[in-house]
């Protein structure tokens, strides 16, 4: 992993909701793999001090004078508001590429990308790579409303088949992605699913995938203190290999991509009854 102060190459408003920032870092761009993320540090003097994690949207390897990484985000709080104010030539302190990437399948050919809201972001980079390695890519994006679909035009370009679902019916299917999923799987002959989005969506996509006997790789989110594996804030409950016990694993280094079948979706790790844990730390 690399820690660097990088220059912002460009800022673009992608839609009413989404902002795109392109960051110059040949080193990070070179090393980056789909599903990985960056830790972006707030500028000095702010009352919010922790890095914010953002998936890598795309990597730009064209041209040889600058190789850039792109992030796409919506404004949630002070950190993302500050990010959206970055302009060309501003600098930002970046750590990346962080986390375990999606695994590119060796045997399977037909890949379905399922993205919920801003969760679609890392699936563009993945889709590009899958296509580059000759796989079939299909796309299923869901969101609350049309303006919250990430880059729908690019999504259509990416997918052999592309479908949208919105909660309010403003674009595509009026409802949830999971309502379209079984049919998509059939029509596309899906052999592997990659999903990123809200927790409940990932749980449902995993369930449906497994019911169809298809492996599901999920990219998960959790509040992160450090993004590099040293604080233990970002854990997910994960079954061990033989399914006998659950332990907390770090989203930032053991994930963010997990095997959906191994995530203990609705379980919390029970405290061993004799252990009383401190209030802090």
């Amino acid at each position, binding site marked *: *992993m690399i*820690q660097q102060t990088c220059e912002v190459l460009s800022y673009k408003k992608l839609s009413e909701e989404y902002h795109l920032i392109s960051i110059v870092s040949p080193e990070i761009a070179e090393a980056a793999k789909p599903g990985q993320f960056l830790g972006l*540090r707030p500028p000095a003097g702010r*009352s*919010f*001090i*922790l*890095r914010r994690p953002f998936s890598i949207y795309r990597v730009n390897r064209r041209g040889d004078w600058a190789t850039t990484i792109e992030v796409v985000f919506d404004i949630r709080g002070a950190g993302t508001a500050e990010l959206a104010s970055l302009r060309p030539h501003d600098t930002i*302190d970046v*750590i990346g590429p962080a986390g375990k990437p999606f695994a590119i399948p060796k045997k399977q050919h037909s890949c379905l990308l399922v993205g919920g809201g801003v969760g679609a972001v890392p699936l563009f980079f993945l889709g590009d790579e899958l296509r580059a390695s000759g796989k079939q890519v299909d796309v299923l994006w869901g969101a609350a409303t049309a303006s919250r679909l990430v880059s729908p035009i690019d999504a259509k370009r990416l997918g052999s088949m592309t479908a949208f679902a919105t909660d309010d019916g403003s674009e595509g299917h009026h409802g949830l992605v999971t309502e379209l999923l079984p049919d998509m799987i059939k029509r596309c002959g899906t052999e592997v699913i990659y999903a990123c989005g809200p927790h409940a969506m990932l749980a449902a996509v995993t369930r449906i995938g497994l019911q169809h006997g298809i492996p599901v790789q999920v990219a998960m989110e*959790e*509040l*992160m*203190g*450090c*993004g*590099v*594996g*040293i*604080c*233990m*804030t*970002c*854990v*997910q409950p994960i079954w061990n290999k033989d399914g006998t016990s659950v*332990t*907390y694993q770090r989203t930032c*280094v053991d994930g963010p991509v997990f095997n959906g079948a191994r995530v203990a979706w609705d379980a*919390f*790790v*029970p*405290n*061993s009854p*004799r*252990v*009383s*844990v*401190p*209030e*802090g*730390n």
Partner: protein
Amino acid sequence: MSEQKVDLSVDLGGFKLKNPVVTASGCFASGREAAEFMDLKELGAVVVKSMTIDPWPGKPTPRMAETPSGMLNAIGLQNKGVDHFLAVDLPWLVSTKVPVIASIAGNTVQEFMLVAEKLRRAPAVVAVEVNISCPNLEDRNNMFAHDAKATASVISAVTRMVDKPVFAKLSPNVTSIPSIAEAALDAGARGISLINTVMGMAIDIDTHQPKLAGVVGGLSGPAIKPIAVRAVFDVHRAFPHVPIIGMGGIMDAKDAIEFILAGATAVAVGTANFINPAVGGEISRGIESFLRTRGFRSVAAIRGQVKIEG
């Protein structure tokens, strides 16, 4: 101007570190992840995440909430247990040649003793830090660190088990930190580490839920620096000859100098690692250049040198 060498080494009561900057327990894991960003030998020592006799699972999420100039955490001391530390983490640390301070925790005096015993002959471990900010199962879950007697019983049990120097890591959530320090020192502690996190809480006003699954958590980061400086100052004034590892909100070399002036012998960097995992080395170099610029020959020269009138 002067190319005079500055002596950064510090004596922590029987053992020396080649510079005063260590990591704060629980904010650097065992150093392996951060080693991607820095050479661990730039640190005086690595203080590892508190370890317990058995693995502890930790608390459910959310475990963290950002607060103004700080963060709350309720991790629940997730760790894989002392055996895993000895088998996996320590051999790796030995290979890096950085001194190790082993932080230990438990819910009973017995548990602390068992962990300490296992560390007795651990190579590279130059000291044991006892994290007594743990609920005491034998006393209605009151934290050991919140009671002088409980503190004394843990510390004396641990010092009986290991002949390595023992540091008591104190909580700031008490009426008198010096009186807890006194109990720890009387029980055989060689030095004092402080402060652990300050108890705090945050509530999501939309969901009405606590922002931490653990409800209450520990506040760390720049927000608590003034509280920590004062704690170090008070304990140093009460026990001027006792080595102190000072911590709480240290982000840069200037903050570290403030702790040393207040009386800290060494400083530990916690939350700052999350933002910049290479910060320990930067702080150590920053202290050196601060001292050199001002003509001090050693870090010891400014320890406790805050000017108090009268």
